[in-house]
């Protein structure tokens, strides 16, 4: 059985007579432990899809107009509030784009991780020890000292590591990383991606990486989905899609990644007229 099964999911915003079809009938599956990338430009519906997986997208304003989301056989869109909360964090956990604003500025990072553990793993006695381990796993040095730090005392890269530690602390079966490196500078970006890769190898957790950057996808994801204007326009094993993109938009997206050793006077720009 698939870990995650999304079928004909449709999410609209705005007036029902003239809706914005943010997600327009998409279907995909993820197996346990699988790494998948969801690629597309801003506004293509990737983040809306990601948030919908645990109904984090508030309705209203969003309207779930069609389809099903099944996680471990449970129908997420019809799950009662209580079970939904149990699913959030322990079934599906998130790492968001902007670590500096995704952590609550008035609580220490230790406290924010503790909240997640208390909520989903109440059987743990030594919570502080567990927090230290979580921070250690994501490569934060001297975790015993750091856990009393407030988010603003850490750099952006460290904050994102804390977000990852918090997400992992509840042992989720699926980690959704929504543009986890977009707000970080390039060297930190690489560190975070390396960390995610290492974590992927250590655990049997599935990862859904959401990005607009095909460059990150190549050596990370087993499979890739390409989203454009709310639809999935292409999907398949990463190597295959990269080698032989079928859809014009996929080709254009791949060409947008600048390559080393090639002289380019200008960066490529997507020509929408040719796609539509």
């Amino acid at each position: 059985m698939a870990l995650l099964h999304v079928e004909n999911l449709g999410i609209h915003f705005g007036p029902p007579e003239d809706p914005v079809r943010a997600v327009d009938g998409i279907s995909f599956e993820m197996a346990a432990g699988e790494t998948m990338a969801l690629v597309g430009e801003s506004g293509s519906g990737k983040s809306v899809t990601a948030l919908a997986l645990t109904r984090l997208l508030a309705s209203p304003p969003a309207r779930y107009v069609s389809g099903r989301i099944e996680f471990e056989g449970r129908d997420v869109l019809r799950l009662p509030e209580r079970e939904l909360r149990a699913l959030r964090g322990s079934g599906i956990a998130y790492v968001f784009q902007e670590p500096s604003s995704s952590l609550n500025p008035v609580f220490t990072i230790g406290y924010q991780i503790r909240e997640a553990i208390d909520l989903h793993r109440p059987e743990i006695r030594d919570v502080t020890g567990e927090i230290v381990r979580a921070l250690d796993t994501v490569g934060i040095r001297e975790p015993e000292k750091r856990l009393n730090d407030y988010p603003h005392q850490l750099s952006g890269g460290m904050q994102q590591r804390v977000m990852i530690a918090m997400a992992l602390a509840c042992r989720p079966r699926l980690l959704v990383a929504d543009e986890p490196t977009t707000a970080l500078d390039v060297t930190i970006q690489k560190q975070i991606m390396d960390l995610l890769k290492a974590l992927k190898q250590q655990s049997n957790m599935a990862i859904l990486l959401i990005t607009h950057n095909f460059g990150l996808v190549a050596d990370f994801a087993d499979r890739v989905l390409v989203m454009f204007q709310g639809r999935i326009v292409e999907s398949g094993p990463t190597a295959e899609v990269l080698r032989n993109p079928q859809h014009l938009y996929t080709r254009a997206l791949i060409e947008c990644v600048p390559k080393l050793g090639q002289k380019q006077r200008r960066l490529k720009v997507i020509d929408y007229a040719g796609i539509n």
Partner: protein
Amino acid sequence: MTTYLIRRILLLVPTLLGITLLTFLLVREAPGNIALMKGAGGENGSRAMTAEQREAMIKLYGLDKDPFTAYAEWIGRLTRLDLGDSWVDHRSVVAKIGERIGLTASLAGSALLISYLVAIPLGVIAAIKRGQVTDRAISFTVFVLYSIPSFAAALLLILLVAGGDYLNLLPMYGTNSINASEMGRFEWLWDRIQHMILPVICLTYGSLSYISRYARVSMLEALAQDFIRTARAKGLPERLVILHHALRNALIPIITIFALELPVLISGAVIIEEIFSLPGMGQLMFASLEARDNPTIMGITVFVSILTLLGYLLADILYVVVDPRIRYE
């Protein structure tokens, strides 16, 4: 932090000098003076004063001196904590304020406390129910309340619930009933509370409506933050997301306006104490202004200024307590 505090406390001195200098010059240079007030009725009136008597009195109170010299002398006495004697009854200003400050402080304190206790939940509810009927009802009500001047509300309330014309639920004026001295302790306290209800309402509703609007905006801002999404993504129940993660952040700006409320409440007390015949500092201020009793006016000014400035200082300290990002160097 300690250096910051010391610097802030030292800065209170020039601020206080500015406030007192301005007030001193204003009350002294405004037309009229104590001699004219005491001689009210004019040359032909029953309490008429001769021109010589008036001159003597002006000299006696030092009103003939250069205002800056007089201010310097007043400051000199202030440094020895001497606020002088009232020109009306020749009692020490400190004693006069001392016997009245308790009443005003308890009025303003209750008003401040109740304002916050009611306004924050109102603001939070309005923010959660944004755009819905509840939010609109709360917004409409607080706007109406905010628009009613407190003296009008006071008179209206007296007419409706205290006058006996419509209802006779609460006493109309004063701090206690006439037979208060014969009452037991709890009976006396209940009598006092009943007397305080209307004045406190009149002092409260304005601040309350203002703070609740502020709380609503502040809460909406907090709820729109990314970390709220993180809190929900963790699986936290909505109650904790709102009351813990959002409210804790929303409280930061609400706390600072507490300092702004202090002078508002005290100036409100001037009118309200007068209307309800409460012998507090506000009423004393009103009476002293009418009588041109400069030492008392200045004494109250000093008291209220220090209180307000300390309020600002306290707000800044509270800022550090609730927001870990702020550390004063």
